[in-house]
């Protein structure tokens, strides 16, 4: 059995080569007509105002990302458990392998319940966020 990561690396090379080839082909084909005006960003026909990287956005996006971090680490810890689960059931019995995971997921469920009660997973518009004219959802 050869190292499978050689083949995966080869696909990585191919996966990069295909888009880069397309970019090169396109750069040979396409015209370039530099002209003022068409480089303006699209804002439904209005003259664009300000930078988009400085707009205020809903803090909720941050809450969701924070919650994701917790549960993503949790999935990392669950995966090894799922791999050995079947063998472990016959080796040490079901309660000894299942109970710790039930407790672990239980703690997470309590955490999710807490976040739920505090409105972290409810999409609320805070009055402060909707007051200014330069704020977006």
């Amino acid at each position, binding site marked *: 059995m050869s190292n499978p990561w050689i083949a995966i690396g*080869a696909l990585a*090379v191919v996966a990069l080569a295909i888009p880069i080839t397309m*970019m090169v082909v396109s750069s040979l084909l396409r015209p370039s007509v530099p002209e003022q005006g068409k*480089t303006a960003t699209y804002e439904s026909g209005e003259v664009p105002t300000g930078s988009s990287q400085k707009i205020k956005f809903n803090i909720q996006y941050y809450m*969701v990302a924070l919650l994701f971090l917790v549960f993503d680490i949790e999935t990392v810890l669950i995966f090894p458990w799922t791999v050995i689960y079947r063998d472990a*059931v016959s080796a040490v019995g079901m309660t000894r392998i299942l109970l710790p995971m039930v407790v672990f997921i239980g703690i997470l469920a309590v955490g999710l319940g807490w976040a739920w009660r505090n409105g972290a997973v409810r999409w609320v518009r805070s009055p402060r966020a909707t007051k200014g004219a330069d704020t977006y959802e």
Partner: protein
Amino acid sequence: MQSAPLPESLADLAGLDPNSTPVMILMSLIGAALIGSLMMTNTALAGPWAKRKITAAFTDRIAVDRIGPFGLLIIVADSVRLLSKELIVPEGVDRPAWDLAPLLIASSALLGFAVIPMGNGLHLADPEVGLAYVFATASMASIGLVMAGYASNNKYSFLGGLRAVAQNLAYEIPLILTGASVVIFAGSLQISEIVAAQSATLIGPIPSWYAFVNPFAFVLFMIANLAEVGRNPFDIPEAPTEIVAGYQTEYSSVYFVLIYLGEFIHIFLGGAIIATIFLGGPAGPVLPGIVWFLIKIWGVFLFTQWARSAVPRVRIDQLIEIGWKGMLVLSLANLLLTAVIVGVVA
């Protein structure tokens, strides 16, 4: 079906020694090019042609039928047209990130196919962490979406990027937890073992595909997959009637092609994951494995297009609530229930 990985069988075919590293690197590159072109062919068929035909059939119209048989040559016409468009670089874009995002979106989705068994020995690599690897590559696109949204210097793009990441984060966990419930059955992350574990029969002629063994997980996975690939009812990252085109608003020419391509490869990657862990991989009666594999991934593609035409879009607040309050709780319940059932049966 349990055959050697593609590079080794290619080396056998060429009569070269599969134990020497340079031979394996060469054969891996040939195999990778083969897999890459197969998926690019599928995407080329799906993007400019099948998608239009399917949507037209749903909305009672006639789609592309002017050029070639069934309008198939529109694929050639469209690729030439899109590649020869001028690339407009908008003012104030964050340059390296703006260029890298389309590249990342297109290539990350293609990477996942390395571990997918496509039947007839078309299986590039079979590492022990196969399933974890494929989930990892599938979620890399989120980074590309944020990069595209942030670097474009466009408010629509920025909102689209934020929405895309909120959605992908919210449905990533249910997707992976449901995938983990399959691992409980199979007892391995190695893709070939997961496929082999589904080759027995359940009752009568029904095979023990995990879609039949655990239909609840299958439904959850299909829904989470719709959200991951950003199709209705979860298409708010691009929501054409709200934020123009979301993160891809400012992209033109080849960059637009790459983002569009990446989306379609991503749908097929989702289909390939579903086919592999829920529908027995390339298994099926009579027809060869590769045909069954293609039927399965096109079936999932058809499902996403059906949802796109038939299901209304959810709002961002509904999206977050469905994800965190519904899908997450259900997938945790599914994981524990699967563990109990497997524990009792085993």
